[in-house]
């Protein structure tokens, strides 16, 4: 069972269909069981029940999640696969001490793969949709997997199956979410 975490400004918000709905649809199509919780409602039972986690993105001006780092302290000890998308990448990096730096990208961006990884295997680059105001400063415990001309677009923990993507794979790059689900299946 995958835990989808909604990072939007409140539970059941107007942004939910934009950032959480498309991920839920991809999992439904892949016949992958999931349950969704707002980040303020993730506790021990949810964490325990999850085989993997997807942290969804938020609207450009929606940064309320960043004011509650205490709600994400479970991430370093989780140990199972995590995919952080856009704001979710920021949450993941922050949980390992990574900060942010200004880098606004809105629209399609060319992404180059920098390091071999099963997530991007066989691809040297692709065009991706981004809507973000900040990029993350990559924590020491992570490696950079892909970049645009302006900032790091994908990271992975050096020893744990934790991924962060600055762009939105659910827009025109659904194959990346599908590969994450395959990695998750293989990790079981």
């Amino acid at each position, binding site marked *: 069972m995958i835990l989808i975490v909604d990072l939007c400004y409140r539970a*059941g*918000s*107007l*942004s939910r*269909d*934009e950032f959480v*709905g*498309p991920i839920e*649809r991809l999992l439904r199509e892949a016949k992958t069981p999931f349950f969704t919780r707002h980040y303020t409602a993730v506790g021990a039972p949810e964490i325990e029940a999850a085989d993997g986690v997807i942290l969804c993105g938020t*609207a*450009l*001006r*929606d940064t309320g999640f960043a004011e509650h780092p205490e709600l994400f302290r479970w991430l370093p000890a989780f140990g199972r696969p995590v995919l952080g998308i856009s704001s979710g990448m920021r949450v993941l990096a922050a949980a390992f001490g990574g900060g942010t730096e200004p880098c*606004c990208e*809105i*629209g*399609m961006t060319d992404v180059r793969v920098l390091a071999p990884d099963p997530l991007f295997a066989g691809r040297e680059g692709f065009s991706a*949709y981004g*809507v973000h*105001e900040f990029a993350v400063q990559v924590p020491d415990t992570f490696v950079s997997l892909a970049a645009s001309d302006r900032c790091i677009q994908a990271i992975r923990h050096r020893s744990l199956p934790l991924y962060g993507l600055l762009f939105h794979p*659910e*827009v*025109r790059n659904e194959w990346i979410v599908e590969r994450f689900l395959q990695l998750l299946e293989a990790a079981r």
Partner: protein
Amino acid sequence: MKLGVLFSGGKDSTFACWKAMQQEEVVCLITVISGNPESYMFHTPNIHLAALQAEAAGLPLVEVETAGEKEEELLDLARALLAAREQFGIEGVVTGAVLSVYQAARVQRVCRELDLWCFNPLWNADQEAYMEEIIDAGFRVIIAGVFSSPFDESWLGREIDRRTLDELREIARKHRITLIGEGGEFETFVIDAPFFSRRIAIEEVSRVYRNYNGVLRIERAGLVAK
């Protein structure tokens, strides 16, 4: 949060408005009227009736005209959003973007420049579920423009009911177009919505059609009790 809805009178922006009303406070509709029939952003055949739809919804309408030149129209969009903020205190904008990265990114950029939230409640929506929901929720939508084969003149003015939706499904499958007409294969006009206190009654139309390209122009319409 006080929101303005970028409104064309078609199914996507009207449905997005309804979604927004369920979560936040929609305080106005915003329409950019393009003089350029080729405009990727704003052109739609019956935009002159947005005022009547706004009246049906009991919402004020902020209207701005644009010559429709590619990047200039973004300045006109910014002008419209600024007017909506000044008059109605909007803090964010709602769009009916579903798949168009071109449209969505441009509105996102303008909103960022103006420090406004941007919401796209139909973004990447499941098209099948969306079309079903339109009918189930009580929206009444007609086809007001066709711009691609196999949509011939008989489609102009047709209401999207269950039978039409079945036909659209078949066409989408055969012709590899989106069920919702996102590629501009057809345009729609909303004559009734769950949040309209009265519905639009079409009194006179004119049709221009040639070779799978046609428009149903609503010449005269009024509001009637539902």
